């Protein structure tokens, strides 16, 4: 059939289609990260972790060097940790990650940087610690057994 034989009288050219269909659609461009960008991200993150770690370590060592600060540190450090922990639970996105990072970095610094103090403390309180540990274990075993037996009865 030739084109002139085709009846175009009722064909609505103006509304036949959408020009955008034939044109190039906008495509979401995936951002390519180069190696140098990866390097800066990695070093930036480790630098941030190191900053928090160093701050915690320095602060704890300064407190140990000046025993007069110990009472305030004993109150402030757990209070700050509790506040930051709650914030980490409620926050979203980068703030959550950052608060978790601070908690981990400072906790690591307090534990690792003062290993000698912790060691001495454990030695000094070894009997109390062993008793506490035994109590915790006994309690957990007892509670666990009770719960397990109750749940087993329900099933029967």
């Amino acid at each position, binding site marked *: 059939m030739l084109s002139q034989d085709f009846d175009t009288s009722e064909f609505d050219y103006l509304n036949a289609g959408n020009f955008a269909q034939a044109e190039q659609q906008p495509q979401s461009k995936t951002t390519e990260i180069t190696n*140098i*960008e990866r390097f800066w991200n990695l*070093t*930036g993150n480790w630098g941030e972790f*190191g900053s928090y770690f160093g701050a915690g*370590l320095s602060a704890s*060592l300064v407190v*140990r060097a000046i025993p007069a600060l110990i009472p305030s540190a004993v109150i402030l450090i757990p209070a700050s940790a509790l506040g930051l922990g709650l914030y980490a639970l409620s926050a979203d996105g980068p703030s959550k990650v950052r608060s978790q990072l601070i908690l981990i970095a400072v906790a690591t610094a307090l534990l690792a940087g003062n290993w*000698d103090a912790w060691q*001495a403390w454990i030695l000094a309180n070894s009997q109390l610690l062993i008793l506490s540990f035994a109590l915790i274990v006994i309690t957990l075993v007892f509670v666990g057994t009770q719960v397990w037996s109750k749940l087993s009865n329900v099933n029967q």
Partner: protein
Amino acid sequence: MLINKNQVIVSGLLALGIAGFGVATALQFNDRIEYRIGNRIESNPAWLVPPKAEFKSLERGYGGLKILLALLGTGGMVAVMLIARSEGQQEPIRQKIKGYQNQAYEFSHAAESAYQMAKTQMEYKKLLEADEVAFEGEIETAYCESLGIDPNQQQPALTGTATLDSATNPSSKVNDAPVSAIEPNKYAYIKGFVSSTCLCWGNQGGGKSWFVRHLVCEKLKLGYRVIVFDPNSNQASWEGVELYNSYAEIERMMRWYVDEVMERYTEFCASTFTEEDWRKQLWEQGKAISIICEEATTYADFIEDGELLVKFVKVANTLSRKQEMPVTFVTHNNTQTCFGNIKGLGNVIARMQQIELIPTTDKNSPTAQPIASGKAFIKTDGSDKWVEVETPKIESKITDFRGFQGQKKQPISISEKPSGTVGNVPAQDTINAGNPDETPTVDLEALLTNVLTEVSPPVFSSDFAPLEHSERVQLARLVIAQNLGKEKTILLLWGARPGGRNHAMYTEARAMLERLIKGEE
């Protein structure tokens, strides 16, 4: 691969920070006492030593060093964090700049390639033309030999559009005078200034007037009718040529010139002549007219109709060649100021064929007057290249041109009417004014100039000046007669370009152009 020197700094600081923290962590803070209790030897801080223990030695603690290293490590880590974050923000911008630089380099490479290609093409074209000339020379030699003429013998000068055929038939246009004594090759460039519109410029004493007078001789020898506009002269200085030495007359003649050129175009468009035949006919009818505009820089100050001056210069530059009406302008420079700083002429002047006469100082004169150095620079039409040439040596200023006139009398009306002005100058009322009915009601030449210079919208657009259809067609034919190529002509007439969404319009315009060329309306 190391790209940025900050990478080294950051890496170093990070390593030092980690090492500092490692050492600060490993060392013990407090002094410890080594003691013996029973059989065991232990070490503990003083407060954990049992009272019964036997002191053995003291282990020093490193609290101060630990604090120092911890603080230094912290500083290093903060520096690492700040530098890395800053570099991380700048890096995408650097990548973008690098991309642009690559693009620029590629573009520059492409442009260089295009330039080299164009250059090669030009060289090839030149070689081709040279080849053609050599081939024509061979044909001419063979033809002369077949006629029994020695091809090396000096031939009579050919005038006008004389052909080789007419040279063998001396009854038509043969000037028996030998070719000028000037060496032909050395001054061959002058031929280009004889039959084309050109600008002759230079400082005082450069020899402009003398050179132009030499040009007038050449023009007269060739058969041109020469009309001189020289406001600072009299007939005694221009014996044998038509002189107009008042600004009123010059203005009137300018108007006549513009009208004459446009009228010729109208006639040409209405005729069935080819361009070659048309020009041949102009020569045969003695309508080859050349205008010399001396002191053209002063025209703008004294000629009242500024638009006429602009139109005159534009018509002389763009439309005169096909109608055999070249104009030679004599000015003091080649900038827009050479025509009185009239706007809109800058591009026209820049593209003109030009000769710059170079003056030197007369060492024999006590006042060190400037005189012609015999050197000049020429630039051909549309080119930007200046070439140094020698000007002909002329012993004295030529004032009598009667001996140079061609044999054929110019039968054009303006010269044969009696005149009331200087010498044999015609009066204005005899110029193109015999029949007022012939004067077009619409100033087509002005419109044509506007269309060609793209000042006005396309001829067939609704924005164009209100014209009858027949007038538009007439104007369109004038545009077609310019031989600008179909694409350019369609752009000027309909404003359509090939390709794109308006291609259909272009196709339609092309069909209409074909019809116009065939003579349909």
